[in-house]
């Protein structure tokens, strides 16, 4: 409350300061910018009050930041710049006016560069600001004031300069002249620095642009005074002064706008918390955060609890994008989310903290869901790998039996045959030959049962036809597409039909069709005996498919497998 009281007092002082300064400016319009017309006076008040009001308002919201006081101070300095008017008749006012005639640009530049945190980082910024203070306050203000008293130097209307220590008019002129040159240098440097930072800090973009414009006009003002060697209110200068006033208003209003935007973001976060508490949609958090940060391409990833991996809301692995700014949200000393975003999109430290705090539950919720999804995906992948490995192994076995063992036996049978023709076919050899043929036939059936060769070579339809030839019961095939599918899908579909055919006691009907990116296999039979549903569920589940078993009237059983095949 004490702070609010102080701020109220400061606001009141600001209003009074503006009115008083305008009074001073109007006391002798020939020495003044603001005092030349009613419009100029109004612009003078609006610019100064806007800066003070925004400074005070900002301090209300973020008391820890030095930006608010700096901005308010620059508003004050803007008013004081008119105090060097001899018409005020007050020695105190006149002296302050002499010393602080150009204090506004360094203060305003400092404020803009420090937006919004209140601190200035980087040696270039610090050095330029130091130069600006030295140039703006000392060289064209305090130093000449110390060296000469205008009233003694021939200005009969001028009040007394209370800080004049010596009477060195020539030196004062030289210092001022150098100050003007130097003034151009530091104000131009400030303008360029701000322009350069526009690209880096998105959130502060408009503030920086307005500030850069303002300091550029200040530089022009100094440049206009090169010939003269001191600042004066000529025609060109008056126009430039108008531009300064307008741009200072722009600085103030862009600060206000960014504050309004942040407030809107905060209310979005608040709404988000309510929404997410009701029904959390995966990815919903990302959309909201993207809106708050003003970066539609913002992504959010969650660190898994027990590994270094990052996953998105769907649980898919996410690799850090090189060259993209990352911000880690930390809760209780533990990273809970990693945001990738455009540089500067989340530069507002306080907003970030508020988002992080407000969305704490939502983030934790989504992170846990992402973790579960990721685990499920891993599980599914490993299940699918196991099934694939099993299929590959059976296929290899089938090949080995056909191309290895069976081929050898056929060769042996051939040799035996040759021997028989040579030896005149003794009974023992005939018997061996018969045995051998039996073995070959057995082996063929065995190999065939291990893995249907038609499945790999020609696909599901061919394999099902082969199944229909082998099965103990009639297998009727209806509309089985001749298309090829992924090996896993084909072998799962085949496995369903084969398992039903194995356990069937009566006619089996196999129907297959592709619906919406899924191969749907319907196998129907009456009262199957010992159908291994679990094994089939495993196979189908490994492909992220669904297995449905339903019993109709009359013991008609339908096994439906839906296998994603897109």
């Amino acid at each position: 409350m004490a702070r609010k009281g102080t701020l109220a007092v400061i606001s009141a002082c600001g209003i009074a300061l503006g009115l008083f300064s305008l009074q001073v400016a109007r006391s002798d319009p020939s020495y003044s910018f603001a005092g030349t017309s009613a419009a100029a006076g109004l612009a003078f008040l609006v610019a100064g009050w806007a800066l003070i009001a925004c400074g005070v308002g900002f301090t209300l919201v973020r008391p820890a930041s030095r930006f608010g006081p700096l901005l308010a101070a620059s508003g004050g300095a803007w008013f004081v710049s008119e105090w060097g008017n001899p018409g005020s008749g007050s020695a105190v006012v006149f002296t302050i006016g002499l010393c602080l005639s150009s204090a506004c640009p360094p203060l305003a530049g400092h404020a803009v560069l420090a937006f919004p945190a209140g601190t200035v980082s980087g040696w270039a910024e610090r050095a330029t600001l130091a130069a600006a203070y030295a140039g703006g306050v000392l060289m064209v203000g305090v130093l000449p004031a110390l060296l000469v008293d205008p009233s003694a130097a021939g200005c009969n209307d001028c009040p007394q300069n209370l800080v004049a220590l010596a009477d060195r008019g020539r030196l004062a002129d030289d210092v001022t002249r150098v100050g003007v040159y130097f003034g151009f240098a530091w104000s131009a440097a400030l303008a360029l620095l701000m322009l350069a930072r526009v690209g880096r800090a998105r959130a502060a973009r408009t503030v920086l642009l307005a500030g850069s414009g303002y300091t550029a006009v200040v530089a022009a003002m100094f440049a206009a005074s090169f010939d003269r060697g001191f600042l004066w209110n000529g025609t060109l200068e008056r126009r430039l002064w108008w531009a300064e006033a307008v741009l200072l208003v722009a600085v103030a209003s862009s600060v206000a706008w960014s504050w309004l935007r942040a407030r809107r973001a905060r209310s979005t976060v608040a709404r988000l918390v309510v929404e997410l508490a009701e029904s959390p949609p995966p990815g919903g958090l990302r959309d909201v955060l993207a809106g708050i940060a003003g970066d539609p391409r913002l992504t959010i990833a969650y660190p898994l609890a027990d590994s270094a991996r990052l996953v998105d809301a769907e649980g898919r692995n996410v690799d850090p994008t090189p060259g993209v700014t990352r911000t880690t949200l930390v809760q209780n000393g533990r990273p809970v989310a990693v945001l990738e975003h455009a540089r500067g999109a989340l530069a507002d430290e306080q907003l970030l903290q508020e988002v992080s705090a407000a969305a704490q539950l939502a983030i934790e919720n989504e992170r846990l869901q992402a973790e579960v999804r990721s685990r499920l995906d891993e599980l599914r992948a490993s299940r699918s790998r196991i099934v694939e490995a099993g299929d590959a192994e059976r296929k290899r076995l089938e090949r080995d039996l056909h191309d290895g063992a069976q081929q050898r036996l056929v060769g042996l049978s051939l040799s035996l045959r040759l021997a028989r023709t040579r030896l005149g076919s003794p009974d023992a050899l005939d018997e061996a030959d018969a045995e051998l043929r039996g073995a070959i036939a057995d082996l063929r059936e065995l190999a065939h049962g291990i893995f249907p060769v038609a499945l790999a070579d020609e696909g599901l339809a061919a394999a099902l036809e082969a199944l229909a030839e082998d099965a103990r019961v009639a297998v009727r095939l209806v509309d089985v597409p001749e298309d090829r599918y992924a090996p896993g899908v084909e072998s799962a579909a085949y496995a369903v039909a084969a398992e039903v055919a194995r356990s069937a006691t009566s006619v089996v009907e196999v129907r297959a069709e592709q619906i919406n990116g899924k191969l749907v296999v319907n196998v129907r039979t009456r009262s199957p005996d010992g159908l291994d549903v679990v094994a089939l569920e495993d196979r189908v589940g490994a492909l992220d498919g669904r297995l449905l078993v339903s019993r109709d009237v009359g013991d008609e059983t339908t096994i439906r497998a839906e296998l994603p095949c897109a």
Partner: protein
Amino acid sequence: MRVVIADDETLLREGLARLLADAGVDVVGTAGTAEELLRRVALTRPDLAIVDIRMPPTHTDEGLVAAQEIRRSHPSVGVLILSHYVESRYAMRLLEENDERSGYLLKERVSDVAVLLDALQRIDEGECVVDPTIVSRLVRKPRDHGPLDELTDRELEVLGLMAEGHSNDGICRKLVLSPKTVETHVRHILLKLGIGETGEYHRRVLAVLAYLRGR
């Protein structure tokens, strides 16, 4: 009869060559790959090529592809495919892709000289040959009640021989029946199964096989 033998297994290839030579067949060349086979065929112009279905490089259906190529570019050369696969699909594919003078036997027949020679003989005479084991599996295959149940045992026997690729004359010899009786059986069978009478031999084999396969 002049034959070329293609099989990537040397033992089998050479054994088969000797066996056939012993039986009086003139083996004019052997090959280990499909390309070599095609070269041998072009070079020696045999009456017949005996081809393993699985050959390098993929060991799947190179034999069938080579058979088609041979029948296309050398129509006078017959082809006998040897295969481990008892599924009728491959035999059906062979017969569909090639008009006649082609046959499909299970590989283990190589030691059964009588069956082998009979098949070679029939192919050389312009017939098709389908392995008896494959046909009997098709005939015995469980199926819904239908026209097949209406056939007498004799008719089933005749049907099987038709599916194996025997002509009416062949069936007469096999079953020791008069040509008239066989013709009557054949007509009854086709009528009962609803297969349109076709004078053309190759079409009849395909139609009967397709009926038995249920497609």
